């Protein structure tokens, strides 16, 4: 499948995140880069915690389990245990199965959603990160290069796109900039050939970076 890179908005120190940034980013894609709007998209990330009989005695149970439902893999579900560098691919019914087990309970759901655009060989998705509380937590983008599946082979092309994108956004004088999410795929045993598991790992990494940006 085509390679995707994720990036997220890093606001300047002390600046509150607003949907204005999202509007401006979409306008950049449409007006400056000539992107054709192609529909909507939504990826959901669920943060699970172990249910313990005795709260104080968690032992060596993982403190978090992440579940990812990707917008372009509706029949699949991905579980990540970051502490163990483990990613499991499953059918979408796996969510219902975990619900039946009642050993890990969903605590927070983050929805990544927005519009997608076609720009020649690229498919670009611009969206917001919104928990169920509806408070805006982040702005992020997916840039997909359709002709290539090799991460290494597409690296230069995507870096060039990123440079063009940064220049385009800079002209709007917005209080922040986009940062590339750069997870270590090898940690999870993932290879150069791009797969949905790579995307799930990027979303998990993006979530951590978004949370850190909000705290700062």
């Amino acid at each position, binding site marked *: 499948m085509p390679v995707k890179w994720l990036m997220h908005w890093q606001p300047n120190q002390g600046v509150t995140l607003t949907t204005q940034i999202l509007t401006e980013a979409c306008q950049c894609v449409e007006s400056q880069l000539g992107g054709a709007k192609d529909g909507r998209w939504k990826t959901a990330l669920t943060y699970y915690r*172990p*249910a*313990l*009989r*005795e709260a104080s*005695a*968690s*032992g*060596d*149970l*993982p403190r978090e*389990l992440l579940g990812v439902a990707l917008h372009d893999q509706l029949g699949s*579900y991905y*579980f990540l*245990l970051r502490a*163990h560098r*483990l990613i*499991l*691919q*499953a*059918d979408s*019914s*796996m969510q*219902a*199965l975990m619900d*039946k*087990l*009642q*050993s*890990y309970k969903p605590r927070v759901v983050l929805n990544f959603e927005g519009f997608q655009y076609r720009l020649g060989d690229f498919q670009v998705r611009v969206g917001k990160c919104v928990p169920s509380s509806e408070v805006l937590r982040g702005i992020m983008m997916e840039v997909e290069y359709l002709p290539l599946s090799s991460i290494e082979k597409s690296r230069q092309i995507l870096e060039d796109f990123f440079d063009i994108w940064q220049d385009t956004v800079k002209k709007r004088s917005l209080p922040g900039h986009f940062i590339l999410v750069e997870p270590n795929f090898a940690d999870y045993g993932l290879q150069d050939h791009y797969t949905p598991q790579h995307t799930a790992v990027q979303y998990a990494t993006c979530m951590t970076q978004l949370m850190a940006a909000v705290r700062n």
Partner: protein
Amino acid sequence: MECVVQGIIESQHVEALQILLQGLCGVPKERVRVHELCLKSGPNLGVVPSEVRLLCDLAQPTPSWTVRHVGGAMRGAGAEQISVLVRTIVESKVGHNVLRFFYSLGYKLDHELLKEGFVFRFQRGAQITVTVTSANKMPKLYATDEAVPVTPGIQLVEITAPAAAENYSEVVAAVSSFCEYLAPLLHLSKPGVSMGIVPTAAAAAASLMSNSGAKTL
């Protein structure tokens, strides 16, 4: 949800059962070789204990994994009156690292079995699956090549059919009706309700074998 009945048959009569099933189903049998690992939640995990089964299909050239959770059976006066168990079931195909995943979550191996035999899958009022297997235990952890039968001379027959809340009574009827065809060879009942071996099984098996022999001539 699924409808389930089970029964046991002596290994010496399995060939006759196969002939009967071949005639009834009209489809070829498929080989079954499944390594089943039953995992249970560790002592502090979950407000209530939980159990999950990992199934590794070893019959295909590339092993594939499924995870399965068997839920509670339907209850009530209606449920008691029917001879078929109706229970909730959730299954998912999963990647090869599923065992490491559940161990990392805090699940422990309770027991493992190697199930070998055959299966018929066909449509007859419902999507019915008839599995005939011997259950084998491993002397050493994961040692499927060294498995030995748990009950030598006896095999398990299981009939399942997927069902939904809207149609389970039709599925129950389809399964019950199919079970009647197998009555000469085996008793089929709800799991956990043991009916033993059919006394006329030997005669029925002999009849099936001799009929089959006559046909091939």
